[in-house]
C-alpha cells in the first residue's frame, strides 16, 4: 500500500509504503450483508523525513536505529451490504510498536488508549 499526506495536513509531506496482513477470525452474516472481524499487522516505511535516522551515512554504524519504519497492530472490521458485490468498507483500530513498548515499560504513566489510531477505508473487489 502507498500512502500520502499533504504538507498542509501533516506539517511536512509524508509518503508511506506499507505491507499489511490480516487474519480473519469471525464473520457475522445477515441476509446478503456480512461483517468480518480481523486482526492484522502493518509494517510501514516513511520516506522523505528530515534527518532521517535510516540515512546511516551521516552517522557512525549503529548510532541510531532505523526510525522511519514502524509496526502497527490493529483490530478491524470489514463489511458490505452485498456480500457478492464489489463494494466493501472497513475500519481499523490499532497502536504502533513504539507505544506498545512505551506502555509496557511505563504502565503506571502511559495509558495505551491515548495512543490508539483509527483507519477508515473503502475496498473495491474485482
Amino acid at each position, binding site marked *: 500500500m502507498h500512502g500520502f*499526506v499533504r504538507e498542509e495536513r501533516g506539517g511536512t509531506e509524508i509518503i508511506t509504503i506499507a505491507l499489511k496482513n490480516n487474519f480473519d477470525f469471525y464473520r457475522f452474516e445477515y441476509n446478503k450483508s456480512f*461483517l468480518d472481524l480481523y486482526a492484522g499487522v502493518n509494517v510501514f516505511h516513511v520516506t522523505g523525513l528530515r*534527518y532521517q535516522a535510516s540515512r546511516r551515512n551521516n552517522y557512525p554504524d549503529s548510532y541510531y536505529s532505523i*526510525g522511519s519504519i514502524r509496526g502497527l497492530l490493529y*483490530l*478491524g*472490521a470489514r463489511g458490505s451490504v452485498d456480500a457478492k458485490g464489489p463494494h466493501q468498507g472497513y475500519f481499523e483500530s490499532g497502536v504502533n510498536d513504539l507505544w506498545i513498548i512505551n506502555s509496557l515499560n511505563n504502565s503506571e504513566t502511559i495509558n495505551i488508549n*491515548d495512543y490508539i*489510531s483509527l483507519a477508515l477505508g473503502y475496498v473495491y473487489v474485482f
Partner: protein
Amino acid sequence: MIRPLVLLLAISCGKFTVSPYVSNTPNSKLNKNQLSTIKESDTGADSSFKIAVLSDTHNYYKELEEQIDYINKHKNEYAFVLIGGDLTNLGLLREFETTKKLLQRLKLPYISAVGNHDLLSNGGRIFDQMFGPSDFSFTYNQTKFILFNNNNWESTGKVPDLEFVEEELLGSSSQYNVLIGHVSPLDKDRWTERDKQEMGTVFRTYNVNYFLNGHDHNPGGESYEGGTRVTIGASSKRKILEVEFASGGGGVSHNFISL
C-alpha cells in the same frame, strides 16, 4: 452486528492521527512563555538561588514522573527547572506531547534545550513550534543562561553557532554565565580537536562558570577550561542535578540528588 462496531469505536477514543510522523502542532513557544513566568520572580538583585536540572528524559516516563514529584515537593528550594534536551527518542509529535504533558505537572516554570534525538524525523520543526528557537538566552538574578543547539550531525547550517554564543557572552554584564548545550564540548565522536579548542577558547575568554550538557546518560562533572562542565544525566539514572548560584560572588556549585 452493531455491537462489535460500537466496541471498536469505543476503544478508538484516542487521538486520531494520519501518521506518526506529522509535525503540525500549535505554535506554543513554551520556552518564551515559561520565561515570562521565570522573570516574575527575578529581582535583578544579587541574591542566591538554586535551579533543578534534568535531561534525556526520552521514554523514561515513569522516572520523569518521579523527578517531577520530587521537584514539586521541594519547589520552594528552586527558582525554575532547566532541561538539557532529548525529550524524545525519534522526534515524533506524540513523544513530544507525552513529555510535555508530564512536564506541565511541574509546579515551577521550565526551559528546555534541544537534543539530538529531538531533531530526528520531523522533530526539529516540532521543537521549533512547541518550544521555540533552539538558540536563545535569558538572565535571572545576575546570572546569564545561554542555551544553544550543538547537535551538529542532526542539524543543517552553522551548528553550533559560536558567534551567537560569543555575542551573548560579550554582551553579558552578569555575575555568572552558564552555557547549556545538549552535547558535551568534549564529546569524542562529534568534535575534532579544533572544535574542542574553539569551544574551550570561548569558555575561557569569557570566564564562563558552567557548561551543562546531556547526551551522555551518566551524570558527572569535571573541571573545564577554568570553570566546570557537568553532564546532567538521563532520567533513567534517577538523579536530579541542583545548581546553586551564591550571592556576592560566592560562586556556583552543583550537587546530584538521588531519588
